């Protein structure tokens, strides 16, 4: 009997993909092959399956490989699909994110320009609020990362008096408002927007910590994180590990070293329960780096060991001259310096 008026085959393939993703499966090759056979290599659904395959594969391979793979898929989707097609918009977004995450000289600037252009394009073509919101958050993240790590990039544009962070904050706040109205303030769907907003506040506070009081911004960041860093879902939902890490950073900025250490240690333990992948979208070195930072004021040996683990983890994932390796070196340097002095002395 014919299913679903001829739409049954597509519905079956999509439902199978949704189920495999929810179950944590990592190999969709058989499903992809079937979609190619039934619908063709350039159909939206076939490319949607390819997109999800790349999404999962990117969690378990070096970043440079992910950028290349997403670049290839981007070229295919640009040729095959309409600019407003959700699959094409998803691939466009994900390629830009991995480009920024690579962190080679110039990548942070390229990511900002790329996401700026994409946001303008989506607004101009009147994409749905969801996809405009995704582009808004992509740009906010790119701005935050450039503000945070631009000093390690020899060719990055110099920061313009915090203007970029103000824009990031504005974009994130708009998206928090939109998602809160749609899903509610503590919904998982609202979390990505709250996350980038908190990250913007924390980065802004770090940038001016030497000149001005920062408690207000950091406390605001903590309030944005709070609904997601507690409650029954937080330990089981890997995306919320990021809430713990941001919470630890904020607590550390406020001088609550012991509380920060406790939060960072738990995030690390949860992350390491399934090592070897970007669990919850977190690069495998970041939980170690956050823990190292929380330990640094109190115990130098532990902090050094944690920072060394962060470096080891990131070296497996990032190119040699990535800003993400430079970030770890910056934390590690003062922890090993006294030892060198002793040796030299």
């Amino acid at each position, binding site marked *: *009997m*014919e*299913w*679903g*008026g001829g*739409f*049954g*085959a*597509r*519905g*079956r*393939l*999509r*439902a*199978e*993909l*949704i*189920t*495999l*993703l*929810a*179950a*944590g*499966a990592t190999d969709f090759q058989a499903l992809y092959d079937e979609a190619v056979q039934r619908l063709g290599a350039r159909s939206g659904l076939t490319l949607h399956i390819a997109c999800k395959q790349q999404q999962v594969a990117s969690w378990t391979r070096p970043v440079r490989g992910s950028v290349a793979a997403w670049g290839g898929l981007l070229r295919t989707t640009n040729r095959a699909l309409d600019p407003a097609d*959700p699959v094409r918009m*998803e691939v466009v977004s994900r390629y830009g994110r991995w480009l920024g995450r690579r962190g080679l000289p110039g990548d942070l600037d390229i990511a900002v320009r790329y996401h700026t252009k994409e946001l303008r394009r989506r607004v101009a073509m009147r994409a*749905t609020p*969801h*996809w405009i919101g995704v582009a808004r958050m992509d740009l906010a993240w790119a701005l935050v990362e450039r503000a945070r790590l631009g000093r390690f990039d020899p060719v990055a544009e110099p920061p313009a008096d915090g203007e970029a962070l103000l824009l990031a904050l504005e974009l994130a706040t708009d998206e928090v408002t939109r998602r809160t109205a749609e*899903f509610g303030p503590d*919904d*998982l*769907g609202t979390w990505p927007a709250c996350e980038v907003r908190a990250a913007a506040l924390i980065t802004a506070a770090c940038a001016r910590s030497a000149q001005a009081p920062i408690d207000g911004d950091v406390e605001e960041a903590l309030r944005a994180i709070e609904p997601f860093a507690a409650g*029954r*879902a937080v*330990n*089981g*939902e890997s995306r919320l590990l990021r809430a713990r890490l941001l919470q630890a950073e904020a607590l550390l900025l406020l001088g609550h070293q*012991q*509380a920060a250490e*406790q939060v960072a*240690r*738990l995030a690390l*333990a*949860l992350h390491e*329960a*399934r090592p070897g992948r970007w669990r919850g979208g977190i690069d495998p070195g970041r939980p170690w780096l956050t823990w190292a930072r929380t330990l640094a004021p109190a115990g130098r040996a532990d902090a050094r060991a944690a920072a060394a683990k962060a470096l080891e983890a990131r070296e497996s994932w990032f190119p040699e001259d990535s800003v993400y390796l430079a970030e770890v070196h910056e934390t590690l340097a003062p922890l090993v310096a006294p030892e060198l002095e002793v040796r030299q002395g």
Partner: protein
Amino acid sequence: MMAGGPELLRRTVAARWWGELIASDRRLQDTKIGYYKAFAKVASGGETRDRKVVVAAAGGAMSTFYKLFGPGGDRALLSAYAEHWGGERVATPDPTSRLGYETAVWAYWGHRQGWLSGLEQTWPHPSAVVNSLVGVVADFAAEWPHLVRATGWAPPICAIEDLCVATGGMLGWDGAAALLGQAARRGAADPKTPPEQVMDALRDDLAGLFPGRDAVAALAEGVDAVLASLGEVKSALLEAVTLAAADPPRPPVPVARPSRASAA
């Protein structure tokens, strides 16, 4: 591993009904499909309550329509449900609504096959079984928004049954219908929103269903609680030490004890 098991899902009321229907004579199948297509087409134009319009769109006769979708209709899905689940669980609406229920199941069947295929490959945790079903129903609703609206924003009845079976009865019929109804409504409201978004939005509603969650998560909560307690103890000790340093205890004052002699 899921509570009900895929083998149980292959033997649901809807699965048996579908099996009997495809084993029946071809003419009956074709006639039924003709009505399903007619209902879906009329629904997309916003008209469904008028049975004359549906019958005309199917190019059939009113008598055939009643024979198939009237009370006790030939191979009627709702009759199979009423027989198995009891009349109080399953509404017995007018013939047009009965056709709507069957049309939704017919339209959804490909999604159901895909969901079962995914489950058979992965045998996931029950929470993933339920979560994936939420996503699948949302995806179906995004593909058939007019049909979902025409059936009162209800999920396909077979998906409600699947959810009851998959949770091993932890979720009753009404609870399953309410949860999947939300998924259907959200999916149909904005068909361009990815189903993952609907799954996220309803995840909190599912969290309470599975007290025996991921072992790592449970362990983490335990560790968290212990660390929090230790933190409190540590703070109390630090406070005591600080106080003691600021105000050292005085040497004990000798207490004059009455001598044995005076006591006597």
